[in-house]
Every structure is written in C-alpha cells, then in structure tokens.
C-alpha cells in the first residue's frame, strides 16, 4: 500500500481545518478526570480542556504559522497536549519536550516509548516526527561497547536468512555425500570401497560423490539422454580407459550410459507399438495425438513416447525413490549371483557382479511392468456391463 490515502487525507484535513478557526475552550470545573472510570465518558467531560487546534495539527503538516507561533516558547502557551497520549497539563504528569520544529509537543516518556517501538527491530534506525519529518535527536550515554554490540546484533539479525540458506545447502550436500559414499561401497564391495574412498579425497571424489544421487535420478529422465554419456568423463581419468579383458571398472562405468541408451532404444523399438496399443485399449477416450498442457502450463505436443511413459511420468516420487534404490537392489542381486560358483568363476570381482545384477533387475522389472500392462489391457478388453435383467433376480435372492 502506498501513502496515497494518507496524502489525500492530509490534503482534505488541511482544507477543513483552515476553514474552522482554532477553538480553545477553557473550563472552570475540577480537573479530576483521570478517566480511569470508563463509565463516565458519556458527556461528563466538560471539565477537560479541549483544543481542536492541537488535535487537527496532529494530522496535518506544520505550516509556517505553526512554526512562528510555537517556536522555542511552547512553555509559555497555556495549553499543552501530548500528541501521543493526548494528556494535558491538567490531567497528566511528566516532563514536556518539543523535539521537532513543528507544533507537536509530547511527554518525554511517551516519545521515548514511540522511538523505542520504531527501533525495536532495527536499533540503528533514525526516527522522524510523523508530521515535519525532523529526525529526533537523542542525548544518550552510549559507550563504545554498546555501539559495538549493537552493530554486531543487527549484523547477526540481518544475516540469519543467508545462514539458513547456507545451512540447508550444506545439509543437502552432506546427505548427498553420505548417500554417494554408501552407494559406492555397496556397489564395489567393502574392501575396494574403503580403498577408493580413502582420505585424502582428490577433487574428483569431492566433486562427484555429492552428485551421485543427482546422476541416478537424471538417469530416469529422458531429457538427460544427450548428457549422460559425458558424465563419467567428469570423474574418470583418461588413462584409466584401457581396453582390457575383463574391462576395468572405469571402463564399465563409462559404458553404462551408452548401454542405457541402446537398451531404451531397442525396448522402444520392440515394445513401443505394443504398449501404445494396450494404452489405447485402456484409455480409448484419450486421443494420443491431441495437445495436452505440460507441467508448467506450456502447451507441448504430446508424442507417442509420453503416452507410453505416462504410467511412470505420473509419479515423480516413484521414479526418484526407484533411482535411489537402484545401487542397493543391484548389490542384492549381485551378491545373490555370487552364490553360484559358475557366475563367481566367470566374474570374479564384486563390482561387475553388482553391475550385472542391476542390469538383470532392470530387465526383470521391465518384463514385469510389460506383463502388468498386458494383463490390464486384456482385463479391460474382457470387461462389459451386465444387463440389469441379468442380475436383478440374483440380488433379490
């Protein structure tokens, strides 16, 4: 909200008050009207001094007349009214103070309360008179220690949001590093993992470890296809990429994104059309070629892939949890494979057994999903609505 209403109001008020002359009434009755008895306000206050002039001056800017009449000699005017508590000579106590150049006068106590309130959150803020905008000057005994502590306090106060952001970021990074380390140890086995993650960490480990969960989640999104093969380049030294038989772990890791792309592509080729058919049987009322609204409200063309992918796409949480669980599931399948002497003989190291386990799991999962989709489509095909006459008798029995 701007000050528009205020300024307009001030203008109106000035116009009104200029038409009505200052009206000061004196009373001769007792001034025992400390107003603590609330019941007596209904017309029993003729004894109080009442000045329209000072009331209206509290809501209008000081004019030049105010300045000349009230300059330096407010002590001499017979009628005083505190602009904060409206207390007057007759009914209030306390030291009077005129702190600015306009006609406003107040009790020192009232003004100090107001200044304290304005400075509550920002102790170094300058407080001005609401009418003439004069900065109030305070005479105070300020020790250097207090000044120093005040600066420290307000610095801390204003830096809290940054600390919060830093803290949250730090916590996320720590969580990610722990996840990354745990996933690595799970995949390569305890001994190898401890050797890999031995301190001091090289910059590659520092950089890659917190990104492990991010990469895993990325691997479930199609938009990451172009960048995924580049990711292993971040943490694998070129001289590790020797073609050996069996391939060394670095080489296997850098092959995985390509394997992923090829697998997805051939899956699409083999089952894409079939899945689309089942989908259209399940939801025949949805036209696959129509344009749907994207997540951000942007209109994007809906292609075949999206239709097939919707079961997964509809549930981001499922994808993320699935991606993060993948290393541990791979390790479980891998250690299961390790129980067979045949596999153990062919693939001696844990890492490759686990990678194989992960691949087998993905294939198994896709087969299960495919079967489920097929069953659902079949189920939908066999569905029909029964005639009422068929079951009307059944329910009556």
């Amino acid at each position, binding site marked *: 909200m701007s000050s528009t*209403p205020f300024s307009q109001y001030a203008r109106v008020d000035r116009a009104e008050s200029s038409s009505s002359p200052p009206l000061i009434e004196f009373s001769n009755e007792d001034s025992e009207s400390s107003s603590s008895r609330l019941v007596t306000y209904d017309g029993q206050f003729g004894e109080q001094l009442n000045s329209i002039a000072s009331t209206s001056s509290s809501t209008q800017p000081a004019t030049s007349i105010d300045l000349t009449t009230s300059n330096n000699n407010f002590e001499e005017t017979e009628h005083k009214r505190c602009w904060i508590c409206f207390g007057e000579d007759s009914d209030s106590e306390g030291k009077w103070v005129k702190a600015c150049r306009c006609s406003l006068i107040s009790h020192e106590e009232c003004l100090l309360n107001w200044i304290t309130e304005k400075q509550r959150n920002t102790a170094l803020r300058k407080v001005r008179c609401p009418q003439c905008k004069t900065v109030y000057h305070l005479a105070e005994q300020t020790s250097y220690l207090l000044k120093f502590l005040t600066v420290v306090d307000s610095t801390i106060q204003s830096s809290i949001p940054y600390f919060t952001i830093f803290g949250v970021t730090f916590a996320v990074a720590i969580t990610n590093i722990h996840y990354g380390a745990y996933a690595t140890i799970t995949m390569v086995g305890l001994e190898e993992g401890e050797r890999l993650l031995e301190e001091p960490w090289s910059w590659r480990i520092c950089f890659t470890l917190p990104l492990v969960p991010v990469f895993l989640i990325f691997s479930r999104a199609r938009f990451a296809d172009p960048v995924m093969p580049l990711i292993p380049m971040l943490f694998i030294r070129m001289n590790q990429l020797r073609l050996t038989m069996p391939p060394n772990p670095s080489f296997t890791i850098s092959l995985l994104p390509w394997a992923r792309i090829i697998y997805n592509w051939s899956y699409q080729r083999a089952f894409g059309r079939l899945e689309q058919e089942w989908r259209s049987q399940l939801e025949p009322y949805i036209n696959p070629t129509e344009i749907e609204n994207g997540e951000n409200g942007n209109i994007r063309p809906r292609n075949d892939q999206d239709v097939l992918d919707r079961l997964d796409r509809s549930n981001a949480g499922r994808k993320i949890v699935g991606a993060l669980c993948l290393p541990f599931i791979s390790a479980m399948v891998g250690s299961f494979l390790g129980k067979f002497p045949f596999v153990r003989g062919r693939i001696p190291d844990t890492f490759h057994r686990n990678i194989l386990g992960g691949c087998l799991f993905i294939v198994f999962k896709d087969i299960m999903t495919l079967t489920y989709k097929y069953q659902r489509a079949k189920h939908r095909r066999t569905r029909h609505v029964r005639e009422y006459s068929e079951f009307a008798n059944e329910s009556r029995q």
Partner: protein
Amino acid sequence: MAEAVARRLLKELKDYQKEPNPDLAKLSPISDDNILVWNAVLRGESDTPYEGGHWTLRIEIPKTYPIHPPKIKFLTRICHPNISFKTGEICLDILKTAWSPAWTLQSACMAIRLLLSNPEPTSPLNCDAANLLRCGDFMGYESLVKMYTQLYAMDQQENEANS
C-alpha cells in the same frame, strides 16, 4: 498504561462528539464496560460507486495504543480490491507499518474511506475486484461495486432505520 489508553480514547471520543464528522455516521465504543472495542459507520463518498452505502467498522484497540495501531475491519460486506470480501480485513499501510501515534481512530477511519475511492490493485485482498481494475474494465468494476453496495451496505441502513 491502561489508564493512558483510556484517557486518550476518551479524548478522541470527545473530539468526535464536539465536532461530528459528516462522513463518519458513528464512532463510539460498543459498550460502556469496554472502551477497547469501538464501532464506526462509514458513509460512502458521493460520486463513487460507494455512494449511499453505510459500512460498519469494528475497531479493536490494543492496550499499548497509540504506540501500536488499532485493528480495524469491516463488519459490513464490501467489494474493494484491498479489503477481504469474506473477513473484512483491510490492507492499508497506516494500520500496519506506517502507523504513528499522530493518527487517531477518526483519522484512520477517514483514511479507510479514502482508500475506497483510491484502490491499490497491486496488493489485493479481493483478487476478483483487483483483476477487473488491472485489465482496465472500470465499467465492470463500478457496476460490481455498486451491486454489492446496494446488496449489503444499503439494506443495513434500512435495517437500522427500521429497528
């Protein structure tokens, strides 16, 4: 402190009674027992869609008044971009951050009255009214306001006259 609040409020009441404000049909505490809750009745400005309406305001005064601002809300339903249609809450800076003890209950009410004819659609509490203004449909806005004024703010006047 409580005594100081009472003293200031009684003087404000006195000032109002001495020189009644034609734009403010009523300004008084709701009961003799509690001076910290007031009612006010605003008259809509003429030549605005609020013309002819009477709105009741509920003013709740904190014990720390006038260091802290009073809480003012509309009891009568009103259609205005900066006033909540459901709760009657008012978005006005002088009732929050820009408050100073130089304001009185009467001047605050007059500021609210001026807010009626000077809406600020960029910080709305009533999005429907604000959207009409923001897309420049002044005719639509005025007829909407007029309709609600007639529906709620004029009935009340009749009710008061009848009762």
